[in-house]
Protein backbone atom coordinates (compact mmCIF):
# COMPACT_ATOMS: atom_id res chain seq x y z
CA UNK A 1 0.00 0.00 0.00
CA UNK A 2 1.55 3.23 -1.15
CA UNK A 3 0.68 6.45 0.57
CA UNK A 4 -0.93 7.82 -2.56
CA UNK A 5 -4.72 7.35 -2.64
CA UNK A 6 -5.53 8.97 -5.98
CA UNK A 7 -3.15 9.35 -8.82
CA UNK A 8 -4.10 10.90 -12.17
CA UNK A 9 -1.76 10.76 -15.14
CA UNK A 10 -2.44 12.80 -18.24
CA UNK A 11 -6.20 12.50 -17.95
CA UNK A 12 -8.09 13.76 -20.99
CA UNK A 13 -11.82 13.90 -21.50
CA UNK A 14 -13.93 15.29 -24.32
CA UNK A 15 -17.66 15.66 -24.96
CA UNK A 16 -17.95 15.29 -28.70
CA UNK A 17 -15.48 17.77 -30.16
CA UNK A 18 -15.26 19.78 -26.97
CA UNK A 19 -12.19 18.86 -24.92
CA UNK A 20 -12.94 19.49 -21.25
CA UNK A 21 -9.91 17.97 -19.51
CA UNK A 22 -6.66 18.52 -21.31
CA UNK A 23 -4.22 16.33 -19.45
CA UNK A 24 -4.60 16.38 -15.69
CA UNK A 25 -1.77 15.10 -13.46
CA UNK A 26 -2.51 14.91 -9.78
CA UNK A 27 -1.60 13.01 -6.62
CA UNK A 28 -3.74 12.82 -3.53
CA UNK A 29 -2.01 11.52 -0.39
CA UNK A 30 -3.79 9.10 1.90
CA UNK A 31 -5.52 10.83 4.75
CA UNK A 32 -5.15 14.23 3.17
CA UNK A 33 -7.77 16.77 2.10
CA UNK A 34 -7.36 18.15 -1.38
CA UNK A 35 -9.45 21.11 -2.50
CA UNK A 36 -10.10 21.70 -6.18
CA UNK A 37 -10.84 25.32 -6.95
CA UNK A 38 -11.25 27.14 -10.20
CA UNK A 39 -13.68 29.11 -12.32
CA UNK A 40 -17.06 27.77 -13.40
CA UNK A 41 -16.81 25.42 -16.35
CA UNK A 42 -13.13 24.64 -15.78
CA UNK A 43 -13.85 20.91 -15.52
CA UNK A 44 -13.79 20.32 -11.76
CA UNK A 45 -16.99 18.28 -11.69
CA UNK A 46 -15.93 16.38 -14.78
CA UNK A 47 -12.61 15.43 -13.20
CA UNK A 48 -14.32 14.24 -10.02
CA UNK A 49 -16.62 12.08 -12.11
CA UNK A 50 -13.63 10.59 -13.90
CA UNK A 51 -12.05 9.57 -10.59
CA UNK A 52 -15.18 7.54 -9.90
CA UNK A 53 -15.33 6.26 -13.48
CA UNK A 54 -18.73 7.82 -13.98
CA UNK A 55 -17.18 9.21 -17.15
CA UNK A 56 -14.88 7.20 -19.38
CA UNK A 57 -11.67 9.07 -19.94
CA UNK A 58 -10.30 9.43 -23.46
CA UNK A 59 -6.63 9.20 -22.52
CA UNK A 60 -4.43 8.83 -19.46
CA UNK A 61 -4.83 6.76 -16.35
CA UNK A 62 -6.34 7.16 -12.93
CA UNK A 63 -5.35 5.00 -9.94
CA UNK A 64 -7.46 4.89 -6.81
CA UNK A 65 -6.18 2.95 -3.80
CA UNK A 66 -3.36 1.56 -5.99
CA UNK A 67 -5.65 0.06 -8.59
CA UNK A 68 -6.43 1.32 -12.04
CA UNK A 69 -9.88 2.87 -12.37
CA UNK A 70 -12.17 1.19 -14.89
CA UNK A 71 -9.50 -0.94 -16.50
CA UNK A 72 -7.32 -3.93 -15.76
CA UNK A 73 -3.82 -4.01 -17.10
CA UNK A 74 -2.47 -7.17 -18.72
CA UNK A 75 0.71 -7.25 -20.80
CA UNK A 76 0.88 -3.50 -20.92
CA UNK A 77 -2.56 -3.21 -22.48
CA UNK A 78 -5.65 -1.81 -20.81
CA UNK A 79 -8.71 -4.04 -20.76
CA UNK A 80 -12.06 -2.43 -20.05
CA UNK A 81 -13.58 -3.60 -16.79
CA UNK A 82 -16.96 -5.23 -16.45
CA UNK A 83 -19.71 -3.14 -14.90
CA UNK A 84 -19.83 -5.42 -11.88
CA UNK A 85 -16.10 -5.07 -11.26
CA UNK A 86 -16.26 -1.31 -11.67
CA UNK A 87 -19.11 -1.27 -9.19
CA UNK A 88 -17.04 -3.22 -6.68
CA UNK A 89 -14.05 -0.94 -7.11
CA UNK A 90 -16.32 2.09 -6.65
CA UNK A 91 -17.22 0.93 -3.15
CA UNK A 92 -13.90 2.27 -1.93
CA UNK A 93 -15.08 5.81 -2.61
CA UNK A 94 -18.13 7.88 -1.80
CA UNK A 95 -19.41 10.86 -3.74
CA UNK A 96 -21.57 13.85 -2.93
CA UNK A 97 -23.02 15.42 -6.07
CA UNK A 98 -23.45 19.07 -6.87
CA UNK A 99 -27.15 18.43 -7.49
CA UNK A 100 -27.43 15.92 -4.60
CA UNK A 101 -29.23 13.23 -6.68
CA UNK A 102 -31.10 11.82 -3.72
CA UNK A 103 -33.46 8.95 -4.55
CA UNK A 104 -36.84 10.71 -4.70
CA UNK A 105 -38.89 7.57 -4.15
CA UNK A 106 -37.24 6.75 -0.82
CA UNK A 107 -37.41 8.47 2.53
CA UNK A 108 -34.30 10.09 3.93
CA UNK A 109 -33.59 7.04 6.08
CA UNK A 110 -34.09 4.67 3.16
CA UNK A 111 -31.79 6.80 1.05
CA UNK A 112 -29.03 6.31 3.57
CA UNK A 113 -29.43 2.62 4.34
CA UNK A 114 -30.14 1.47 0.78
CA UNK A 115 -26.57 0.96 -0.42
CA UNK A 116 -25.14 -0.51 2.82
CA UNK A 117 -27.91 -3.13 2.81
CA UNK A 118 -27.97 -3.86 -0.90
CA UNK A 119 -24.30 -3.52 -1.70
CA UNK A 120 -22.50 -4.38 1.51
CA UNK A 121 -25.18 -6.80 2.70
CA UNK A 122 -25.28 -5.26 6.12
CA UNK A 123 -27.87 -5.89 8.78
CA UNK A 124 -30.83 -3.51 8.53
CA UNK A 125 -31.20 -2.84 12.23
CA UNK A 126 -27.52 -2.15 12.73
CA UNK A 127 -27.18 0.20 9.79
CA UNK A 128 -30.40 2.00 10.71
CA UNK A 129 -28.92 2.83 14.08
CA UNK A 130 -25.72 4.06 12.45
CA UNK A 131 -27.70 6.10 9.94
CA UNK A 132 -29.59 7.75 12.79
CA UNK A 133 -26.27 8.81 14.32
CA UNK A 134 -25.18 10.23 10.96
CA UNK A 135 -28.46 12.11 10.56
CA UNK A 136 -28.13 13.54 14.05
CA UNK A 137 -24.62 14.61 13.19
CA UNK A 138 -25.85 16.63 10.19
CA UNK A 139 -28.72 18.06 12.22
CA UNK A 140 -31.57 16.14 10.59
CA UNK A 141 -32.20 13.49 13.22
CA UNK A 142 -35.96 14.09 13.14
CA UNK A 143 -36.41 14.09 9.37
CA UNK A 144 -35.66 10.43 8.61
CA UNK A 145 -39.22 9.81 7.39
CA UNK A 146 -39.47 12.81 5.10
CA UNK A 147 -39.02 12.48 1.38
CA UNK A 148 -36.24 14.47 -0.30
CA UNK A 149 -38.75 16.78 -2.01
CA UNK A 150 -39.95 17.94 1.39
CA UNK A 151 -36.54 19.21 2.43
CA UNK A 152 -34.93 22.55 1.76
CA UNK A 153 -31.84 22.70 -0.44
CA UNK A 154 -29.43 22.72 2.47
CA UNK A 155 -31.18 19.83 4.14
CA UNK A 156 -30.92 17.74 0.98
CA UNK A 157 -27.23 18.47 0.73
CA UNK A 158 -26.64 17.23 4.24
CA UNK A 159 -28.56 14.04 3.51
CA UNK A 160 -26.36 13.47 0.48
CA UNK A 161 -23.29 13.72 2.71
CA UNK A 162 -24.75 11.30 5.24
CA UNK A 163 -25.64 8.88 2.47
CA UNK A 164 -22.09 8.78 1.18
CA UNK A 165 -20.60 8.45 4.67
CA UNK A 166 -22.83 5.48 5.52
CA UNK A 167 -20.80 3.38 3.10
CA UNK A 168 -17.63 4.05 5.16
CA UNK A 169 -15.53 4.74 2.09
CA UNK A 170 -11.77 5.19 2.11
CA UNK A 171 -12.05 8.16 -0.20
CA UNK A 172 -14.71 10.84 -0.29
CA UNK A 173 -15.35 13.00 -3.34
CA UNK A 174 -17.33 16.16 -2.59
CA UNK A 175 -18.72 18.39 -5.32
CA UNK A 176 -19.41 21.76 -3.71
CA UNK A 177 -20.63 20.24 -0.47
CA UNK A 178 -21.40 23.59 1.11
CA UNK A 179 -22.95 25.51 -1.77
CA UNK A 180 -26.47 25.25 -0.38
CA UNK A 181 -25.48 25.55 3.26
CA UNK A 182 -25.73 28.54 5.49
CA UNK A 183 -22.54 29.77 7.22
CA UNK A 184 -23.51 28.05 10.43
CA UNK A 185 -23.92 24.71 8.71
CA UNK A 186 -20.76 25.22 6.72
CA UNK A 187 -19.02 25.31 10.06
CA UNK A 188 -20.73 22.10 11.13
CA UNK A 189 -19.96 20.27 7.90
CA UNK A 190 -16.42 21.50 8.25
CA UNK A 191 -16.27 19.93 11.70
CA UNK A 192 -17.58 16.66 10.26
CA UNK A 193 -14.91 16.76 7.61
CA UNK A 194 -12.19 17.53 10.11
CA UNK A 195 -13.27 14.53 12.16
CA UNK A 196 -13.18 12.41 9.04
CA UNK A 197 -9.70 13.63 8.20
CA UNK A 198 -8.56 12.73 11.70
CA UNK A 199 -10.03 9.26 11.26
CA UNK A 200 -7.78 8.94 8.22
CA UNK A 201 -10.33 9.60 5.50
CA UNK A 202 -8.94 10.91 2.23
CA UNK A 203 -11.04 13.66 0.68
CA UNK A 204 -11.18 15.48 -2.62
CA UNK A 205 -13.39 18.55 -2.36
CA UNK A 206 -14.51 20.83 -5.15
CA UNK A 207 -15.37 24.13 -3.56
CA UNK A 208 -15.88 27.79 -4.24
CA UNK A 209 -15.46 28.78 -0.64
CA UNK A 210 -11.86 29.76 -0.27
CA UNK A 211 -12.24 30.26 3.46
CA UNK A 212 -13.33 26.68 3.66
CA UNK A 213 -10.38 25.55 1.54
CA UNK A 214 -7.97 27.48 3.68
CA UNK A 215 -9.26 25.90 6.88
CA UNK A 216 -9.59 22.34 5.79
CA UNK A 217 -7.21 21.65 2.91
CA UNK A 218 -3.78 20.06 3.05
CA UNK A 219 -3.43 20.64 -0.63
CA UNK A 220 -5.12 23.10 -2.97
CA UNK A 221 -5.36 22.57 -6.73
CA UNK A 222 -6.32 25.46 -8.97
CA UNK A 223 -7.81 24.34 -12.28
CA UNK A 224 -8.62 26.45 -15.29
CA UNK A 225 -9.62 25.53 -18.85
CA UNK A 226 -9.15 21.82 -18.23
CA UNK A 227 -5.60 21.91 -16.86
CA UNK A 228 -4.08 22.19 -13.41
CA UNK A 229 -2.64 25.67 -13.28
CA UNK A 230 -1.11 25.60 -9.84
CA UNK A 231 -1.13 23.31 -6.84
CA UNK A 232 0.38 23.09 -3.39
CA UNK A 233 -0.46 23.75 0.24
CA UNK A 234 -3.09 26.46 0.81
CA UNK A 235 -0.53 28.79 2.26
CA UNK A 236 1.24 28.81 -1.09
CA UNK A 237 -1.62 28.63 -3.59
CA UNK A 238 -4.12 30.83 -1.81
CA UNK A 239 -1.91 33.34 -0.10
CA UNK A 240 1.05 33.50 -2.41
CA UNK A 241 -0.02 32.38 -5.88
CA UNK A 242 2.74 32.24 -8.49
CA UNK A 243 0.63 31.95 -11.61
CA UNK A 244 -0.99 35.03 -13.14
CA UNK A 245 -4.31 33.28 -13.73
CA UNK A 246 -4.48 32.21 -10.10
CA UNK A 247 -3.63 35.69 -8.95
CA UNK A 248 -6.37 37.16 -11.12
CA UNK A 249 -8.91 34.65 -9.84
CA UNK A 250 -8.07 35.19 -6.20
CA UNK A 251 -8.00 38.95 -6.51
CA UNK A 252 -11.70 38.94 -7.34
CA UNK A 253 -12.61 37.22 -4.13
CA UNK A 254 -14.61 39.36 -1.75
Amino acid at each position, binding site marked *: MSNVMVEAQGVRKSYGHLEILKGIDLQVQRGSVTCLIGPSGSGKTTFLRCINHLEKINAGRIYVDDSLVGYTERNGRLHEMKDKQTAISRRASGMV*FQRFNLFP*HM*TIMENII*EAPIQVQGRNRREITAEAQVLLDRVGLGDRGRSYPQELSGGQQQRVAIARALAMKPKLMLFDEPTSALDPELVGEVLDVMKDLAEEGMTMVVVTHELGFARQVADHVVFMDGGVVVESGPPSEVLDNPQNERTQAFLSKVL
Partner: protein
Amino acid sequence: MQPQNALSPAQQATAATAGESAPVIPLKHPVRNTIAVFLVIVAALAAMDVALNERYHWDVVADYLFAPRILTGALLTLVLTVVSMSIGISLGAALAIMRLSDNPILSLIARGYIWFFRGTPLLVQLIFWYNIAALYPVIALGLPFGGPSIVLGSANVLITPLGAALLGLSLNEAAYMAEIIRGGIGSVDRGQYDASKALGMSGSKLMRRIILPQAMRVVLPPTGNQVISMLKGTSLVSVLAISDLLYSAQIIYSENYQTIPLLIVASLWYLLMTTILSFFQEKLERHYGRGFDSVIKRKRSRKARRAK
Protein backbone atom coordinates in the same frame (compact mmCIF):
# COMPACT_ATOMS: atom_id res chain seq x y z
CA MET B 1 -30.98 53.86 1.04
CA GLN B 2 -34.63 54.77 1.13
CA PRO B 3 -36.36 56.41 4.03
CA GLN B 4 -37.88 53.81 6.24
CA ASN B 5 -40.71 55.79 7.64
CA ALA B 6 -42.92 56.27 4.57
CA LEU B 7 -46.29 54.62 5.03
CA SER B 8 -47.39 52.70 1.96
CA PRO B 9 -51.02 52.99 0.80
CA ALA B 10 -51.39 49.27 1.26
CA GLN B 11 -50.48 49.79 4.87
CA GLN B 12 -52.95 52.59 5.26
CA ALA B 13 -55.76 50.69 3.58
CA THR B 14 -55.40 47.68 5.79
CA ALA B 15 -54.41 49.38 8.97
CA ALA B 16 -57.64 48.21 10.54
CA THR B 17 -57.17 44.55 9.75
CA ALA B 18 -53.41 44.37 9.88
CA GLY B 19 -52.12 41.51 11.93
CA GLU B 20 -55.21 39.37 11.60
CA SER B 21 -56.31 37.93 8.33
CA ALA B 22 -59.41 38.93 6.43
CA PRO B 23 -61.90 36.26 5.33
CA VAL B 24 -60.87 34.81 2.01
CA ILE B 25 -63.48 34.16 -0.68
CA PRO B 26 -62.43 31.32 -2.97
CA LEU B 27 -62.44 31.91 -6.70
CA LYS B 28 -65.74 31.25 -8.48
CA HIS B 29 -65.79 29.79 -11.99
CA PRO B 30 -69.26 30.68 -13.29
CA VAL B 31 -68.78 29.61 -16.94
CA ARG B 32 -66.91 26.43 -16.11
CA ASN B 33 -69.47 25.47 -13.51
CA THR B 34 -72.42 26.15 -15.80
CA ILE B 35 -70.93 23.90 -18.46
CA ALA B 36 -70.22 21.26 -15.87
CA VAL B 37 -73.73 21.35 -14.46
CA PHE B 38 -75.12 21.16 -17.99
CA LEU B 39 -73.01 18.10 -18.74
CA VAL B 40 -74.06 16.45 -15.51
CA ILE B 41 -77.72 17.03 -16.41
CA VAL B 42 -77.15 15.56 -19.86
CA ALA B 43 -75.45 12.52 -18.33
CA ALA B 44 -78.29 12.08 -15.85
CA LEU B 45 -80.89 12.33 -18.59
CA ALA B 46 -78.99 9.84 -20.71
CA ALA B 47 -78.74 7.43 -17.77
CA MET B 48 -82.45 7.83 -17.07
CA ASP B 49 -83.29 7.27 -20.68
CA VAL B 50 -81.16 4.13 -20.78
CA ALA B 51 -82.73 2.84 -17.60
CA LEU B 52 -86.27 3.46 -18.80
CA ASN B 53 -85.96 2.73 -22.53
CA GLU B 54 -87.59 -0.63 -22.99
CA ARG B 55 -85.56 -1.35 -26.08
CA TYR B 56 -82.69 -2.24 -23.79
CA HIS B 57 -84.75 -5.13 -22.39
CA TRP B 58 -83.51 -4.88 -18.84
CA ASP B 59 -85.48 -8.01 -17.94
CA VAL B 60 -83.36 -10.07 -20.36
CA VAL B 61 -80.24 -8.41 -18.99
CA ALA B 62 -81.22 -9.50 -15.50
CA ASP B 63 -81.89 -13.04 -16.71
CA TYR B 64 -78.47 -13.47 -18.22
CA LEU B 65 -76.30 -11.41 -15.87
CA PHE B 66 -75.40 -14.45 -13.80
CA ALA B 67 -75.96 -17.14 -16.42
CA PRO B 68 -73.39 -19.93 -16.00
CA ARG B 69 -72.03 -19.46 -19.51
CA ILE B 70 -71.47 -15.77 -18.87
CA LEU B 71 -69.76 -16.48 -15.56
CA THR B 72 -67.52 -19.12 -17.13
CA GLY B 73 -66.64 -16.68 -19.89
CA ALA B 74 -65.86 -13.94 -17.40
CA LEU B 75 -63.63 -16.29 -15.44
CA LEU B 76 -61.76 -17.31 -18.56
CA THR B 77 -61.32 -13.66 -19.51
CA LEU B 78 -59.83 -13.00 -16.08
CA VAL B 79 -57.49 -15.98 -16.22
CA LEU B 80 -56.28 -15.14 -19.72
CA THR B 81 -55.72 -11.52 -18.74
CA VAL B 82 -53.88 -12.23 -15.52
CA VAL B 83 -51.59 -14.88 -16.99
CA SER B 84 -50.84 -13.08 -20.24
CA MET B 85 -50.26 -9.73 -18.58
CA SER B 86 -47.91 -11.24 -16.01
CA ILE B 87 -45.81 -12.93 -18.66
CA GLY B 88 -46.13 -9.92 -20.95
CA ILE B 89 -44.91 -7.48 -18.32
CA SER B 90 -41.92 -9.59 -17.25
CA LEU B 91 -40.86 -10.35 -20.79
CA GLY B 92 -41.54 -6.76 -21.75
CA ALA B 93 -39.26 -5.46 -19.00
CA ALA B 94 -36.50 -7.80 -20.16
CA LEU B 95 -36.98 -6.64 -23.76
CA ALA B 96 -36.95 -2.99 -22.72
CA ILE B 97 -33.66 -3.46 -20.87
CA MET B 98 -32.26 -5.39 -23.82
CA ARG B 99 -33.29 -2.69 -26.21
CA LEU B 100 -31.51 -0.06 -24.10
CA SER B 101 -28.49 -2.33 -23.64
CA ASP B 102 -25.02 -1.42 -24.82
CA ASN B 103 -24.72 -4.64 -26.73
CA PRO B 104 -25.84 -3.84 -30.26
CA ILE B 105 -26.84 -7.44 -30.97
CA LEU B 106 -29.08 -7.68 -27.90
CA SER B 107 -30.58 -4.34 -28.74
CA LEU B 108 -31.19 -5.46 -32.31
CA ILE B 109 -32.89 -8.65 -31.20
CA ALA B 110 -35.22 -6.68 -28.93
CA ARG B 111 -35.97 -4.24 -31.72
CA GLY B 112 -36.68 -7.09 -34.09
CA TYR B 113 -38.98 -8.76 -31.61
CA ILE B 114 -40.92 -5.58 -30.93
CA TRP B 115 -41.13 -4.79 -34.62
CA PHE B 116 -42.40 -8.21 -35.53
CA PHE B 117 -44.91 -8.72 -32.77
CA ARG B 118 -46.32 -5.21 -32.89
CA GLY B 119 -46.37 -5.40 -36.67
CA THR B 120 -48.47 -8.51 -37.20
CA PRO B 121 -52.12 -8.87 -36.24
CA LEU B 122 -52.79 -10.86 -33.11
CA LEU B 123 -55.25 -12.98 -35.09
CA VAL B 124 -52.41 -14.15 -37.31
CA GLN B 125 -50.19 -14.88 -34.32
CA LEU B 126 -52.92 -16.90 -32.64
CA ILE B 127 -53.62 -18.96 -35.76
CA PHE B 128 -49.89 -19.43 -36.21
CA TRP B 129 -49.34 -20.80 -32.71
CA TYR B 130 -52.42 -22.94 -32.86
CA ASN B 131 -51.42 -24.49 -36.15
CA ILE B 132 -47.69 -24.54 -35.70
CA ALA B 133 -48.00 -28.29 -36.24
CA ALA B 134 -48.49 -27.66 -39.94
CA LEU B 135 -44.99 -26.28 -40.04
CA TYR B 136 -43.26 -28.24 -37.32
CA PRO B 137 -45.27 -31.39 -36.67
CA VAL B 138 -42.97 -32.45 -33.88
CA ILE B 139 -41.55 -30.27 -31.17
CA ALA B 140 -38.05 -31.28 -30.16
CA LEU B 141 -35.27 -29.83 -28.11
CA GLY B 142 -31.91 -30.36 -29.68
CA LEU B 143 -28.86 -29.14 -31.48
CA PRO B 144 -29.25 -27.71 -34.96
CA PHE B 145 -27.71 -29.22 -38.09
CA GLY B 146 -28.74 -32.76 -37.32
CA GLY B 147 -27.32 -32.91 -33.81
CA PRO B 148 -28.98 -35.11 -31.19
CA SER B 149 -32.41 -33.99 -30.02
CA ILE B 150 -35.14 -34.95 -27.57
CA VAL B 151 -38.60 -35.20 -29.06
CA LEU B 152 -41.08 -33.53 -26.73
CA GLY B 153 -44.14 -34.70 -28.59
CA SER B 154 -46.57 -33.79 -31.31
CA ALA B 155 -47.18 -30.09 -31.58
CA ASN B 156 -50.92 -30.63 -31.85
CA VAL B 157 -50.95 -32.42 -28.55
CA LEU B 158 -48.56 -30.05 -26.79
CA ILE B 159 -50.29 -26.91 -27.92
CA THR B 160 -53.87 -26.88 -26.74
CA PRO B 161 -56.17 -24.05 -27.75
CA LEU B 162 -55.72 -22.49 -24.33
CA GLY B 163 -51.95 -22.90 -24.60
CA ALA B 164 -51.91 -21.28 -28.01
CA ALA B 165 -54.08 -18.46 -26.71
CA LEU B 166 -51.79 -17.80 -23.75
CA LEU B 167 -48.69 -18.03 -25.91
CA GLY B 168 -50.10 -15.66 -28.50
CA LEU B 169 -51.46 -13.11 -26.04
CA SER B 170 -48.33 -13.06 -23.85
CA LEU B 171 -45.79 -12.80 -26.62
CA ASN B 172 -47.80 -10.10 -28.33
CA GLU B 173 -48.32 -8.15 -25.12
CA ALA B 174 -44.61 -8.28 -24.30
CA ALA B 175 -43.84 -6.20 -27.37
CA TYR B 176 -46.21 -3.45 -26.31
CA MET B 177 -45.11 -3.54 -22.67
CA ALA B 178 -41.47 -3.32 -23.79
CA GLU B 179 -42.16 0.02 -25.42
CA ILE B 180 -44.01 1.32 -22.39
CA ILE B 181 -41.30 0.27 -19.97
CA ARG B 182 -38.60 1.67 -22.24
CA GLY B 183 -40.40 5.00 -22.13
CA GLY B 184 -40.57 4.78 -18.35
CA ILE B 185 -36.89 3.99 -17.96
CA GLY B 186 -36.05 6.84 -20.28
CA SER B 187 -37.92 9.26 -18.05
CA VAL B 188 -35.67 8.66 -15.05
CA ASP B 189 -33.07 11.35 -14.46
CA ARG B 190 -29.50 10.50 -15.34
CA GLY B 191 -28.36 11.71 -11.94
CA GLN B 192 -30.07 8.69 -10.43
CA TYR B 193 -27.76 6.36 -12.32
CA ASP B 194 -24.76 8.39 -11.23
CA ALA B 195 -25.77 8.38 -7.60
CA SER B 196 -26.46 4.65 -7.43
CA LYS B 197 -23.33 3.76 -9.36
CA ALA B 198 -21.28 5.93 -7.05
CA LEU B 199 -22.75 3.92 -4.18
CA GLY B 200 -21.45 0.74 -5.78
CA MET B 201 -24.69 -0.52 -7.29
CA SER B 202 -24.84 -1.98 -10.76
CA GLY B 203 -26.77 -4.15 -13.14
CA SER B 204 -30.01 -5.66 -12.01
CA LYS B 205 -29.86 -4.24 -8.48
CA LEU B 206 -29.59 -0.72 -9.82
CA MET B 207 -32.51 -1.37 -12.15
CA ARG B 208 -34.69 -3.11 -9.62
CA ARG B 209 -34.14 -0.83 -6.65
CA ILE B 210 -33.59 2.59 -8.17
CA ILE B 211 -34.62 2.91 -11.80
CA LEU B 212 -37.71 0.72 -12.20
CA PRO B 213 -39.50 2.01 -9.06
CA GLN B 214 -39.10 5.53 -10.39
CA ALA B 215 -40.13 4.46 -13.89
CA MET B 216 -43.29 2.88 -12.46
CA ARG B 217 -44.90 6.26 -11.98
CA VAL B 218 -44.77 6.85 -15.71
CA VAL B 219 -45.35 3.23 -16.69
CA LEU B 220 -48.55 2.72 -14.70
CA PRO B 221 -51.14 4.73 -16.64
CA PRO B 222 -50.35 3.15 -20.03
CA THR B 223 -50.07 -0.26 -18.39
CA GLY B 224 -53.56 0.21 -17.01
CA ASN B 225 -54.64 0.84 -20.58
CA GLN B 226 -52.98 -2.36 -21.70
CA VAL B 227 -54.59 -4.47 -19.00
CA ILE B 228 -58.00 -3.09 -19.88
CA SER B 229 -57.38 -3.63 -23.59
CA MET B 230 -56.30 -7.16 -22.82
CA LEU B 231 -59.49 -7.82 -20.82
CA LYS B 232 -61.43 -7.02 -23.92
CA GLY B 233 -58.90 -8.25 -26.45
CA THR B 234 -59.17 -11.80 -25.18
CA SER B 235 -62.29 -12.17 -27.30
CA LEU B 236 -59.96 -12.58 -30.26
CA VAL B 237 -59.13 -16.04 -28.93
CA SER B 238 -62.60 -17.08 -30.03
CA VAL B 239 -60.76 -17.90 -33.23
CA LEU B 240 -59.42 -20.86 -31.26
CA ALA B 241 -62.96 -21.70 -30.14
CA ILE B 242 -62.33 -20.52 -26.60
CA SER B 243 -65.29 -18.66 -25.16
CA ASP B 244 -64.30 -15.62 -23.19
CA LEU B 245 -66.85 -13.21 -21.75
CA LEU B 246 -67.73 -11.30 -24.89
CA TYR B 247 -67.74 -14.39 -27.08
CA SER B 248 -70.02 -16.20 -24.65
CA ALA B 249 -72.44 -13.31 -24.93
CA GLN B 250 -72.17 -13.50 -28.69
CA ILE B 251 -72.93 -17.22 -28.69
CA ILE B 252 -75.98 -16.63 -26.56
CA TYR B 253 -77.35 -13.85 -28.70
CA SER B 254 -76.73 -15.89 -31.81
CA GLU B 255 -79.20 -18.30 -30.30
CA ASN B 256 -81.84 -15.94 -29.05
CA TYR B 257 -81.23 -12.78 -31.10
CA GLN B 258 -81.24 -10.65 -27.95
CA THR B 259 -78.14 -8.83 -29.14
CA ILE B 260 -78.44 -5.57 -27.20
CA PRO B 261 -79.33 -7.03 -23.79
CA LEU B 262 -76.49 -9.55 -23.99
CA LEU B 263 -73.99 -6.93 -25.03
CA ILE B 264 -75.16 -4.95 -22.02
CA VAL B 265 -74.56 -8.00 -19.81
CA ALA B 266 -71.01 -8.30 -21.13
CA SER B 267 -70.46 -4.56 -20.76
CA LEU B 268 -71.61 -4.60 -17.16
CA TRP B 269 -69.06 -7.28 -16.35
CA TYR B 270 -66.32 -5.42 -18.18
CA LEU B 271 -67.23 -2.23 -16.37
CA LEU B 272 -67.00 -4.06 -13.07
CA MET B 273 -63.57 -5.48 -13.86
CA THR B 274 -62.36 -2.10 -15.16
CA THR B 275 -63.57 -0.40 -12.02
CA ILE B 276 -61.74 -2.83 -9.74
CA LEU B 277 -58.65 -2.51 -11.87
CA SER B 278 -58.72 1.28 -11.89
CA PHE B 279 -58.99 1.23 -8.14
CA PHE B 280 -55.80 -0.80 -7.83
CA GLN B 281 -54.11 1.29 -10.48
CA GLU B 282 -54.82 4.41 -8.48
CA LYS B 283 -53.47 2.78 -5.32
CA LEU B 284 -50.29 1.74 -7.13
CA GLU B 285 -49.91 5.16 -8.67
CA ARG B 286 -50.12 6.71 -5.24
CA HIS B 287 -47.58 4.22 -3.92
CA TYR B 288 -45.05 4.86 -6.65
CA GLY B 289 -45.79 8.55 -6.74
CA ARG B 290 -44.61 9.03 -3.18
CA GLY B 291 -41.77 11.46 -2.91
CA PHE B 292 -42.52 12.93 -6.34
CA ASP B 293 -44.09 16.29 -6.17
CA SER B 294 -45.88 16.09 -9.47
CA VAL B 295 -49.18 17.74 -10.33
CA ILE B 296 -50.98 14.47 -9.79
CA LYS B 297 -49.86 14.26 -6.22
CA ARG B 298 -50.18 17.92 -5.50
CA LYS B 299 -53.86 17.83 -6.41
CA ARG B 300 -54.47 15.10 -3.94
CA SER B 301 -52.70 16.77 -1.08
CA ARG B 302 -54.34 20.06 -1.83
CA LYS B 303 -57.69 18.38 -1.68
CA ALA B 304 -56.74 16.59 1.50
CA ARG B 305 -55.77 19.87 3.04
CA ARG B 306 -59.01 21.47 1.96
CA ALA B 307 -60.95 18.63 3.48
CA LYS B 308 -59.46 19.29 6.88
